[in-house]
């Protein structure tokens, strides 16, 4: 039985590509109203997991529930509840930022006047008002992440999934993203985002899931996962890397004056 108090709960989620198991039986849990971080090294299966959770990639096995609803069996009510910013900034490149937002709103059947009002507000908050009529193809990375987040927020979802929202984003844009997200969770909504940046996860999140090699290796409230250490130390310990920088012998020439 699914616990209705959980915004996201997966059961033995499984995906393989060819012979390689990308996600090997993941039980991801995110309590409702939490600001959750999904951390893990490259290739740990974070993107694959998020894609399956958001209904973009069909799992080979297992189940996903959002607010107690099965994503793959009962997609209609789920799709209205979630907002998604997938990896790789895949947006409609030849629309302007404003057009992208109104396209999204209309697709979701929000009345046009309402869409325009919301879009205007989002563009202003995201500091995109000046570039609103430029094509997305000409946006910088930070602008793309911001317009992507605006599009994901437009229909006021209950759960927001963001894959690497801060990757390649300048500090000013990152700060804007953080402010918007904090305001959003303060109202009781749930955010799940994946990231490499431990300091950021530590600062923002109250719930952390650590993935490694297609498995969840630790999951829970931030303080329990880091257990007195910094999240970075705890993370390196969990994924099996010592953080003391051994193995330097092979690079003895690096920085030496002889060459």
């Amino acid at each position: 039985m699914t616990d209705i108090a959980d915004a996201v709960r997966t059961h033995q989620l499984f995906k393989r590509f060819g012979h390689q198991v990308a996600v090997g039986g993941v039980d991801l849990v995110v309590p409702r109203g939490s600001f959750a971080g999904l951390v893990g090294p490259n290739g740990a299966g974070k993107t694959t997991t998020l894609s399956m959770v958001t209904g973009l990639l069909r799992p080979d096995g297992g189940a996903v529930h959002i607010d107690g609803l099965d994503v793959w069996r009962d997609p209609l009510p789920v799709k209205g509840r979630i907002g998604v910013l997938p990896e790789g900034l895949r947006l409609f490149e030849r629309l302007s930022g404003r057009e992208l937002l109104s396209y999204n709103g209309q697709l979701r059947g929000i009345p046009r006047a309402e869409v325009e009002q919301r879009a205007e507000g989002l563009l202003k908050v995201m500091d995109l008002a000046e570039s609103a009529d430029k094509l997305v193809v000409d946006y910088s990375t930070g602008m793309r992440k911001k317009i992507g987040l605006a599009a994901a927020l437009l229909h006021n979802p209950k759960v927001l999934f963001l894959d690497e929202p801060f990757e390649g984003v300048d500090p000013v844009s990152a700060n804007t993203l953080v402010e918007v997200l904090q305001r959003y969770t303060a109202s009781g909504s749930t955010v799940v985002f994946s990231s490499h940046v431990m300091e950021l996860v530590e600062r923002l999140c109250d719930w952390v899931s650590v993935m490694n090699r297609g498995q969840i290796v630790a999951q829970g409230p931030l303080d329990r996962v880091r257990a007195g250490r910094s999240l970075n130390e705890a993370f390196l310990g969990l994924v099996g890397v010592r953080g003391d920088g051994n193995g330097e012998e092979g690079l003895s020439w690096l920085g030496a004056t002889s060459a």
Partner: protein
Amino acid sequence: MAGRDLGMSAAGGDGAVRVGPSVFVRLKLRLIAGNLRGSTQRLLGFVFTVIAAVVVASLGFLAMTMLRLAPADIATDVVIVLFTTFLVSWAIVPLLAFGLDDTLDPSRLSLFPLRTGQLAAGMFAASVTGVWPIATLIITAGAVAGLATGIGGVLLGVVAVLVQFALCIVTSRLVTTSLSGVLRTRRGRDVLAVSVIFFILAAQLPNLLLNGGLAGDLAGTLRGVASVLRWTPPGMAAHAIADGGAVAVAELAFLAVLTVVLGWLWIVALRRALVSTDASTEGASVRNSKGLLARVLPDGPLAAVATKELKYARRDPRGRVGWFAAVAVTGVMAFSLSRDGTGAGGVALAIAPACIGGVMIGLQSSNSFGIDGRSLWMNSVVYGTGRDWRTDLAGRHLAVMTIAAPLLAALSVVAALLAGNLVWAVPAALTAWGILGVGLGVGALTSVLLPYTVPERLNAFTGAAPGQGGVAFAASFGAMIGSSVLALPVALPVLLGLTWVSVLAVPYGLLISWGGRRIAGDLGFRRYPEILAGTSQPG
């Protein structure tokens, strides 16, 4: 690591190796090999390319040799035209394929500690490495066998072949390098992508001219063309082989100087390309207009998809190329058809071009989601039923019809005027609209069953991402066969003269497109993760 593997090490290091052209040749070979690794389809593609190159090279060489059987002046004229064609192709084709070959873009090499001269020699060597350059060299060498007379002629011929080959390569490098700055900007690539279509059309030109009644005086045409081209550099090379005397020596000396000058210009361009900045992203704003459709249609997904598609047809080079291609192919076919019309004419002559137009435009919708590609997730995270996907397809069809209906009507009027009776435009337009409807219905099915990626980097040689050529072929071929068969019940009677049947064409087309959307909507909803995967291949 890669650096050491390639024998490149930083100047001043104790194990420094001189970086000669051979390093670049190995780099190129390694890029070719790396590109093939782990993909059977690409490997097969490469094998086919090699086989094609071998066949072309041997046939080309053989054909050149056979020129010896022709009268000497005609043989020389043929070689002059061929050499010029080679040079022009070498200047244009790599430009259209820009971005496909890593060694062509000097900016990727700018961080290596290499002098510009080294870089130029290396890039020259890298561009010579490949199946097509070698095939070109072999065919060019055939001219010696075909034209040269006496020992002196052969010796000078070999020199001429090498100079002509070097000229091709250096010109090609010069063109790509001096334009590489432009080609890296978004706008430059957009312009180039659309110009691909003109290149393809230009390639059709000789064919059209020959069909157009010039065939009778082929020899005369050849002589006329060759007498002009004779004084271009490749013409001189060809003439030098045939001449084999003092004039030839002078011509070759001139060509050698020219090649060196072009090479020097290339080095200058290279030096500048290495330090000039990358593309600017200062994009212009677009007008924030709603468009006609959005004003007419009720608020909602249908209007959203239809207006977005119309914007894409205008703003995305792939959209523009698609429409240009459909119109151009129709034009070419209608033109050849009207030339062939030796009595079968009459009303069919007015209706057939319009029907072809309907089929060609309908074919564009055989992969409706292809251009959305990686952005399609945005729709799929919204759609929760088969009905939503049906509405999405309807929006796409509506956009296509908005552009195509007036276009086909105009085409019908033109065809009817050419055929001699303006009234024939009415059955022609009705039939064409009906056929378009059939094409859209069938295309909806192939779009969900055989989706493939339309690469963002358009080039003239493929319309699908690497490895998806088969799917793309199956989709467009299936759509063509399917819509032709389904269109027959209305098209055939009309073409045979029962023009009143054309009244039924539009309702029939609407019925088929509705049926296609109905089936494709449910299929699309069930298969959407597969559609996403199919249209999001790295291209």
